[in-house]
């Protein structure tokens, strides 16, 4: 790019910087990129300081995410889950409701989906069509259960003023404990030691189509993307979505236009939980093929908070953020298997990303200090 071209870019960046008090799309993008890079940098420093090889860590992270076809399949599998749970979080956060309970709603939804499968399989003849019908009903059961489990803290916030951050975290613990108990006491096959339900039959599974991975299906990813689209249209193109966002950010304005903010809180939580419940069915059917102790599950519902925040709680932006985090997750697990660097490190890095996203002012100040408004792009 020519010098004048650079100058123009810089002038534009500066102009944007001037208007930066209300976050622009570009600023959001810059914030997301800068937060991720800074967090990874700190992660690498910590790895080096702990006596591991930082270069090896980063290259293994990248190889684990996109190094070969099966690693890409694993990344996309994690991305599918993170996009679904990320959208669940985004719906709530967009409306100013801090649903930290996506993990619990996901766990409860997955159980409901599993129960639907286990009940329906013996009643219906085996076959592809049956499989599709069972999966659809399982998804429906999961959506209802997830929505109901989220409506509870929604009602507690709306009508009793209970802080939803804390109630949803408590409900996460309760969901994990109760679901474990139900599986261990009633749902595991007689005589089995491990807290797992019976396995689903082969025809209750999403076909792989490509990649040849038993636990990733392109159809699953398609369902996640379709969900994103539905939620986006609901939020950006309907009056309901408008009410939802205004009641979260301009309660008096919403009240004037006749919106009951309390009912909106409950509805927001319910929709958020419905998406989380669908994610639970996806996890049970596409990834596990049975159901198990929720304490052993990946914490998609927590990582989803990072995904949503990184995408500025915009359903569409959740897709690239979800793919990025899917890659981080896959890379982190690969590191856990191959190097002796503990994979928890990546969880810490994700925490750092969330922390930095929460402090846009830090980067604005850094931008001002370096003289360029935009970001260190």
């Amino acid at each position, binding site marked *: 790019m020519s010098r004048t071209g650079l100058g123009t870019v810089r002038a534009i960046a500066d102009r944007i910087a001037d208007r930066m008090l209300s976050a622009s799309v570009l600023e959001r993008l810059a914030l997301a990129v800068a937060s991720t890079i800074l967090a990874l940098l700190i992660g690498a420093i910590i790895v080096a300081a702990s006596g591991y090889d930082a270069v090896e860590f980063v290259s293994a992270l990248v190889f684990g995410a996109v190094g070969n076809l099966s690693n890409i399949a694993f990344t996309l599998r994690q991305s599918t889950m993170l996009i679904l749970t990320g959208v669940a979080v985004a719906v709530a956060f967009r409306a100013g409701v*801090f649903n*930290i309970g996506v993990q619990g709603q996901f766990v409860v939804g997955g159980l409901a989906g599993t129960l639907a499968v286990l009940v329906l399989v013996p009643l219906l003849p085996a076959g592809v069509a049956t499989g599709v019908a069972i999966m659809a009903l399982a998804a429906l059961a999961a959506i209802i259960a997830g929505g109901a489990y989220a409506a509870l803290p929604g009602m*507690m916030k709306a009508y009793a003023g209970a802080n939803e951050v804390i109630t949803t975290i*408590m409900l996460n*613990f309760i969901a994990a*404990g*109760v679901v*474990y108990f139900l599986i261990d006491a009633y749902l595991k096959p007689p005589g089995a030691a491990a807290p797992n339900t019976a396995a689903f039959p082969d025809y209750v599974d999403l076909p792989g189509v490509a990649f040849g991975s038993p636990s990733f299906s392109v159809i699953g990813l398609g369902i996640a993307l379709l969900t994103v689209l539905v939620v986006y249209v609901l939020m950006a193109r309907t009056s309901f979505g408008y009410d939802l966002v205004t009641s979260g950010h301009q309660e008096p304005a919403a009240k004037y236009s006749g919106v009951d903010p309390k009912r909106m809180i409950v509805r927001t939580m319910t929709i958020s939980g419905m998406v989380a419940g669908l994610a639970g069915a996806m996890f049970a059917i596409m990834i596990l093929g049975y159901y198990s102790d929720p304490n052993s599950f990946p914490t998609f519902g927590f990582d989803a908070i990072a995904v949503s925040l990184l995408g500025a709680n915009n359903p569409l932006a959740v897709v690239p953020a979800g793919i990025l985090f899917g890659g981080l997750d896959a890379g982190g697990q690969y590191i856990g298997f191959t190097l002796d660097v503990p994979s928890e490190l990546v969880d*810490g890095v994700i925490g750092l990303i969330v*922390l930095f996203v929460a402090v846009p002012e830090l980067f604005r100040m850094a931008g001002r200090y370096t003289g360029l408004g935009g970001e260190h792009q």
Partner: protein
Amino acid sequence: MSVAEGVDRQRRLILGFVGIVLAAILALLVLDLPGSDVVTVGALERAIQAATPIALAAIGGLYAEKSGVFNIGLEGFMIFGALTGAAAAWIISGSGSVSQADLWFGLLAAAVVCGILTIIYAILLVRFEADQIVAGLAVWFIGLGFGPFAATVVWGGVSSPSLPNIDNLTIPVLADVPVLGRLFFDASPLVLATIVLAVVSWVVLFRTRYGFWVQAAGENPEALDTAGVDVNRVRYATVVFSGVMAGIGGAVLSIGLGSGFTGTGVTMVDGRGWIGIVAYLFGNYNPLGAYGASLLFGAMDMLQIQFQTIGIALPASITGLFPYVAVLIVLAAVGYTRVPAAVGEPYDKEE
């Protein structure tokens, strides 16, 4: 006003209820009535122990929120405290047998490390006006990641080997007083220190000039500024205090009363930081109330042992949920806490 009065009445009702339960428990103990095998001195002892880390986090968080900063990162700082306490004691002992002095050093290290971490956190909150909820959650996630990571660096696994804990302190004469002697004067010094801390915190907050500054920073920062007190400096102090308290609370959990650091799942802190937040809300921002609420949650935590002793067989996965259910009930009942007016709002002097 009528809403506030209603809330007040509701709170009095609940506090009254808690009082009645406590009185009933004492009566059972003293008169040795049937049913006293559910509530034993041992049960109270366990409840007070379980309450100690929760109360430490609660009292610190209370100060921060009173001054206008919602420190939602308590859970994360407790994880760092639990890890640092155990790791520092282990390292200073030369990875061998951990002595009492090593344990006290670990406790101190947890306070210092969490203090330093909270200084960074406080700068992000106060100076850089971070979103308090998101940043607080981030601290939890960072703790959940780097806690077990650091444990692996130190011990080669996410949990420490079994470590000793701080010895009981027996105060002569007082230890011989029935019930109370065993509960407070032949117990871990940390238990007694936490009670003393709760009382001192109450006095400082409600009876000293500094306490009034803290309250003013949260209720009416402009007025405090006009009076010539730096609002942000007060807030820095309370947030760092809350981090130090949470850190000590975590260390109490791992090496004060427990037997080392556990880093599996959501780590050994297991929601106690979150419960600490509810404890001070339930205690209506009163350090003594917060201690009382911590006691309630501590008792819930220990209820499973009592159930076992009287032969009610509930699986641990269910009895372990009692504290969380109690939190939900408490929040639904006293949700309408009057939060300090300026909580969550960064204070800019110029404006």
